[in-house]
């Protein structure tokens, strides 16, 4: 593989609680090439928000990265001190969040916040005017009309969609190599979402920005991303390019997920659902965490930790696709009864 911008390898994160340590992420690994848009998809509880916090080293006080490496341009972020990380944040790595209302400080004008980002890294006063000019440019690039005037407005004077754009502008002020977008469009209307997605594509096209896009929405991921990583209960379970994963998902969870999305295509039928519930982090079963809900599960699935292997140009964590696991490929999948605890 040619030089990746971001390489995540074997990362594990644990939350320390009064009930003991909760393993939020286990052996998470993937890589992002420069200029690529990688999607991370999973339902609630899969660990994707933990992952995004871990990448920028902003886990809550009780969170700890207990293993693995996060290599950004070759540098391992896990080993850096907080000061070194601060120098990186905003500059090499930037993040945008779901709710722009709470991410923008309501007490300061947009201009102040945009300029602050840069000024934190360079503090000569003479440069401020140049920075402000650049801020106006950024606002224009993200599609804010009359940027020269609106830069002095307060966040509440903008609508939700515009605030999201401002957040993107803020993230891009220092031209970071990697932009992490954590559910940036989940709270937006569909037409606004389309605008933001187009904006992200434009950024990649014109600036070569690499984007890590985290979402639970399979549709958005399909439309935007080049490759996708599927997460379940703290593990990465499948990774590959978007077209082949959607056309031929290998992991049973990915298959079930795709079959459960409502669309016009399924009119007249029932949607496929996944019986059972995501296991609680304090009571993770041994072996494959999906086994209890998987129609293909066999004893081997529950025995050992599964390996994350390369199969057909992808990576999958599933006994079914691991030739050395002892999985019986001729067995019939069982008909799992949809238990009444279906979520």
């Amino acid at each position, binding site marked *: 593989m040619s030089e990746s911008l971001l390489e995540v390898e074997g990362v594990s994160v644990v939350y*320390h*609680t*009064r009930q003991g340590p909760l393993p939020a992420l286990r052996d998470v690994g993937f890589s992002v090439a420069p200029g690529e848009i990688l999607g991370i998809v999973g339902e609630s509880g899969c660990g994707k928000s933990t992952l995004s916090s871990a990448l920028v080293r902003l886990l*809550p*006080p*009780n969170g*700890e990265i207990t293993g693995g490496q996060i290599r950004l341009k070759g540098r391992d972020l896990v080993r850096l001190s907080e000061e070194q990380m601060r120098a990186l944040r905003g500059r090499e790595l930037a993040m945008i969040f779901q709710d722009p209302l709470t991410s923008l400080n309501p007490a300061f004008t947009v201009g102040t916040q945009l300029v602050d980002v840069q000024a934190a890294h360079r503090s000569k006063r003479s440069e401020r005017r140049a920075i402000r000019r650049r801020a106006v440019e950024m606002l224009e690039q993200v599609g804010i009309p009359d940027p020269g005037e609106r830069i002095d407005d307060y966040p509440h004077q903008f609508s939700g969609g515009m605030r999201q754009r401002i957040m993107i502008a803020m993230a891009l002020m220092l031209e970071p190599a990697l932009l992490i977008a954590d559910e940036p469009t989940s709270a937006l209307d569909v037409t606004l979402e389309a605008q933001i997605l187009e904006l992200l594509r434009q950024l990649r096209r014109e600036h070569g920005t690499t984007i890590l896009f985290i979402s639970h929405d399979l549709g958005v991921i399909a439309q935007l991303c080049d490759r996708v990583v599927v997460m379940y209960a703290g593990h990465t379970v499948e990774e590959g390019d978007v077209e082949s994963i959607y056309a031929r998902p290998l992991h049973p969870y990915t298959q079930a997920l795709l079959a459960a999305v409502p669309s016009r295509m399924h009119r007249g039928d029932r949607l496929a659902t996944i019986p059972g519930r995501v296991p609680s982090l304090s009571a993770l079963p041994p072996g494959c965490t999906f086994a209890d809900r998987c129609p293909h599960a066999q004893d081997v699935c529950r025995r050992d930790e599964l390996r994350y292997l390369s199969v057909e140009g992808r990576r999958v964590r599933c006994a079914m696709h691991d030739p050395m696991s002892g999985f019986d490929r001729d067995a019939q999948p069982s008909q799992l009864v949809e238990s009444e605890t279906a979520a």
Partner: protein
Amino acid sequence: MAIALPARHRVPLRGLSVARLLREVARRPAGRFGLFVIAALFVIVFFTPWIAPYDPAAQHIIDRLQGPSWRYPLGTDDLGRDLLSRIFYGARVALGVAVPAVVGAVLLGLLLGTVAGYAGGKIDNALVVVFDTLQAFPAVILALVLISLLGPSLRNVIIVIIVSFAPGYGRVSRALVLSVKQNSFVEAERSLGASDFRIAAVHVVPNILAPLCILMAMDIPSAIVVESGLSFLGLGVQPPTPSWGSILSEGFDRVRDTPWPVLWTGLALMITTLGFTMFGETLRDVVDPRFAGLRRLRRP
């Protein structure tokens, strides 16, 4: 009375039982202290007639102005009355006034505040004006004015406290009601045909009791202080009923002869206030982070 309420009040106290709450409070040193003090006070209040060594009004002139001794554990005052017994009976008065008064204030404030928050419109505006006006008076002045209008007596002290504290609870209740009303279960019940009264009584009020209880715990010392203050000035409970305030007052007059009455009463007031306050604050700390679902964390 203003205590900062925890933010995020949409749905307070999800499923915490009283027993679990108390256990959590007891886990913290401040909470343990508070619980101990409160327990001790309640024992005193209920069992004083049996545990107090003497009749608090009984004068043993021969033994007047003594310091602590085996016969009189806390000493005697200038009339030879046993200080320990007087302080115990004073505790009865203090709590016997403060607790019903604060409870009364909460009930009255809750009722008015719920009506205000629920009815809205002109009724709400009118009630808010009443609350604000009453709260605009410095508590001391208000208490003095009221007690002089009503005449000094234990019963009237209770009334004064209720009137002084109720507006605060009224405002708080109203704010809580307004916040809870935003939840869609209120609308859901309406769509099922529930009357406003039912929604208020069954669905809204139970959800706002929790923060009120915390405030109540922290207000009891204030009420005790009001009662003591009025009694100190001679406007509260009348002799021969001993009140901490009156013991203090007499004690100050004779402080050159014997410091003990002032000392012990002051200590009693201090410990009581500390106890309730620590309990209330611990209770709030226990309940508050739970609202947000966070846990108190320990670094490994």
